[in-house]
C-alpha cells in the first residue's frame, strides 16, 4: 500500500503544486488582502474586518447574494432538467443526432457579449418577442420581465440555461451511453415504462455524472458574471446584480481590491458552509462501510 500511494502521489504532484500555489496561495493572498485597505494595488496594512462590515452593510451586495440564491437554484435545476431531457431524447436513436447536438451545444461556443445582447433584444418588450407576438395578433401578449425589477433575474436564468443546458446534455449523453445495455434489458423485461427506467434506474446510476454536472453548474453560478453584464448590466438598477459582478466592479472599475477580496472570501465561506455538512455526511457514510 505504501508503494501504491507513492506512484499515485508522483502522478498527482503537478496537481498538488497547482493546488498549493495556484489555489491555496491565492486564497491566502485574497484573505490577506481582504483585511487590508488595498485600492488599486495591494497594501500591507491591516484594517481588521472593516471591509466585511462594509460589505454586509451594502444593499447592493445583499441584493446580489439574494439574486445568486434565486439564480443558483433555478439555473441548476433548469439546466440539469433540460440538459437531461435533451440527452434522453437525443439518445433515442434519432436522425440528425449530430445536427441536433450541435444546435443545443452552440450557445456554449458563442461569446456572451454578443449573445447576451441578442437575448436583450429578444426579451425587450419593444423590439423582441412581446412586440412580435403583438404584431402577429396576440394583442394581450406581454413578456417584459427584462425591464421588471422583480422578474429580471428570471430572464438571466433563461439565458443562462440556454447557454449551459447543451453542455449538461453532452455530459449526460456520455453517461447515458455508458450504461450497460443489459440493465436496460432487465428493466424492459420487468415492464418498467421507459421514463421510469430513466428515473429509477438510469438516473441513480448516473450519480457520479450528476455530481459532476452539479458541481460544474454550481461553480458557474457562483462565478456568474458575463451573462448578467451582457444582458442587463445588473439592471434595471441593481435588480439583477450578482456577487461576481459586484466583485469585478470593485476589482477593476472601482479599484477597491480589498473590498473585492472580502467579497470573494465571503463567497468562498458561503460555499464552504453549504458543502461542509454534505462532505461530512458523505465521509461518515463511507466510514460506515460499503463502496456504494
Amino acid at each position, binding site marked *: 500500500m505504501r508503494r501504491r500511494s507513492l506512484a499515485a502521489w508522483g502522478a498527482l504532484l503537478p496537481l498538488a503544486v497547482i493546488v498549493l500555489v495556484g489555489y491555496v496561495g491565492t486564497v491566502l493572498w485574497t484573505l490577506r488582502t481582504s483585511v487590508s485597505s488595498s485600492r488599486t*494595488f495591494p497594501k500591507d496594512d491591516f484594517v481588521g474586518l472593516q471591509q466585511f462590515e462594509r460589505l454586509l452593510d451594502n444593499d447592493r451586495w445583499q441584493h446580489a447574494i439574494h439574486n445568486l440564491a434565486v439564480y443558483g437554484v433555478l439555473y441548476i435545476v433548469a439546466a440539469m432538467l433540460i440538459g437531461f431531457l435533451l440527452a434522453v431524447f437525443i439518445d433515442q436513436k434519432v436522425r440528425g443526432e449530430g445536427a441536433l447536438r450541435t444546435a443545443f451545444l452552440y450557445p456554449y461556443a458563442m461569446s456572451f457579449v454578443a449573445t447576451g445582447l441578442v437575448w*436583450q433584444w429578444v426579451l425587450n418588450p419593444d423590439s423582441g418577442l412581446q412586440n412580435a407576438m403583438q404584431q402577429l395578433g396576440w394583442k394581450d401578449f406581454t413578456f417584459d420581465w427584462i*425591464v421588471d425589477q422583480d422578474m429580471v433575474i428570471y430572464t438571466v436564468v433563461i439565458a443562462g440555461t440556454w447557454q449551459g443546458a447543451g453542455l449538461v446534455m453532452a455530459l449526460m449523453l456520455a453517461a447515458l451511453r455508458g450504461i450497460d445495455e443489459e440493465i436496460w434489458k432487465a428493466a424492459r423485461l420487468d415492464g418498467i415504462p421507459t421514463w421510469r427506467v430513466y428515473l429509477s434506474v438510469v438516473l441513480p446510476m448516473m450519480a457520479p455524472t450528476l455530481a459532476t454536472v452539479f458541481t460544474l453548474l454550481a461553480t458557474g453560478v457562483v462565478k456568474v458574471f458575463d451573462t448578467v453584464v451582457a444582458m*442587463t*448590466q445588473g*439592471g*434595471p438598477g*441593481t435588480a439583477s446584480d450578482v456577487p461576481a459582478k459586484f466583485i469585478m466592479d470593485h476589482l477593476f472599475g*472601482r*479599484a477597491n481590491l480589498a473590498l473585492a477580496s472580502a467579497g470573494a472570501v465571503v463567497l468562498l465561506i458561503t460555499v464552504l458552509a453549504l458543502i461542509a455538512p454534505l462532505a461530512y455526511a458523505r465521509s461518515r457514510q463511507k466510514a460506515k462501510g460499503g463502496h456504494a
Partner: protein
Amino acid sequence: QPLKAEVIHWWTSGGESAAAKTLAEAYKAQGGVWVDTAIALGEQARSVAINRIAGGNPPTAAQFNTTQQFRDIVDQGLLNNVDEVAKRDGWDKFLPETVLSAIRVNGHYYAAPVSIHNMSWFWFSKAAFKKAGIAEEPKSFDELFAALDKLKAAGLVPLAHGGQPWQDGIVFTATLAHYGGRDLYLKIFRDRDPKAIMSEDFKKVLLAFKKLQGYTDKGSPGRNWNDATAMLISGRAGVQIMGDWAKGEFAQARQEAGKDYGCAPGFGPRAPYIVQGDVMVFPKTSKPDQVKAQQLLASVITQPATQVAFSMKKGSIPIRTDVDASQMDLCAQIGVAAMKDKSRQLGNGEIYMTPDQNGALQDVLTSYWNRNIPVEKVQKDIVNALKS
C-alpha cells in the same frame, strides 16, 4: 533607430480607431514606431496596464482617465513624469486649468492629455420636436420638462435613455450641474459635504432626476446608449442626455448637427461645461530609449495639429484652446467656445471622487432611478456612499 512605443488604449470602435490612427501617424511622422495594443473597455485596458506594470512588463504608454485612480499609481511611484516636455512645450500656457490640475501631482506632470469629452450633452431630435410641435430647443431645465411633456403628449418617447448605471449617472450629473447649479455641484462632488447632500436644494435635484425617469419608455432598462440615439435618429424619441460621442451615431446615419439634430452642453451661455479628460500615462522604465519614446509621444499628442485631427475623428474637443476649430462640427465648436471660459468648466465626478465613491454613488442613483425609494433615504445613502 526609430523610437518604439507600445501604447495601450481602449479606442477600439470605428471612430475611435480612426482617431487613434491619427495619433499613430503623427508619432510615426516624427520618427517613432507606434506599437498598438488596443483593448476594449476602459476598465479592462486599465487593468491590463496595471497588471503589466505589476508583472514587470509595462507598456511605453497607456491611456488613462484623470481620476483618483491615476493619483493612486502616481503615489505608488509607478509612472515616469514628463516634466521636461511640459516645460519645453509650455503646457502651462495653453492647457485649460481643469486639465492642468488633473495631470499635475505635487508639481510634476505625470500624464499627457489627449482629449476632452463632455459626457452630458443634451441631444434633440428635430424630427420628433416637429412632430410634437416644439418650435425651439429648450433654454432651461423647466423648458426641457415642458418639451418632454409635449413629446409625451404626441405619443413619442420623450427621453431616450439607456437604463444602464453609467448612463443613469450621466443623467444625474447633467441634472446636478444644470438644475442644481455649479456651486451645489462642487459641494456635492468635490467637497462631498453632508450638509449639502441633505439640503433642500439637493433634494430638488434628486426629484428632478427622478422626474426625468418618468419620461423614459418601458424598454429602456439595459438599453445601449446608441440604441437610444437611434430613437432620436428615427424621430421616435425627442431628447437624449449623453456624451459627445453620440455625434458619431448621428454621423453614421448621415444626420447633420443643427439640421437634423440639436446639441447643447447645457442651457444658456453661462451653463457649466463638464469636462472629462483622456490622458496618456507613462509607466516607469529606466530604458533610455523608452524614456525618449515616452517624451516624444507626450510631445506629439499635445501638438495642435494632432489635437485637431484627433478630435475630429473622435468627437471630442482638443485639450488646448489655441487651435483652429473652424473645420470642426457645430457641436464641437460650441464645446471649444465653452472651454475658453474657465468659469464654466467643471470636472465630472471621477475627477473629484475615488472610483470607489463614484461607484457607490452610482449604485445609489441607479437604484433610485429604477425603484421607488423615498428621496430622503437616497440623500442618506449618498452621504454614506461618499463618506468612505
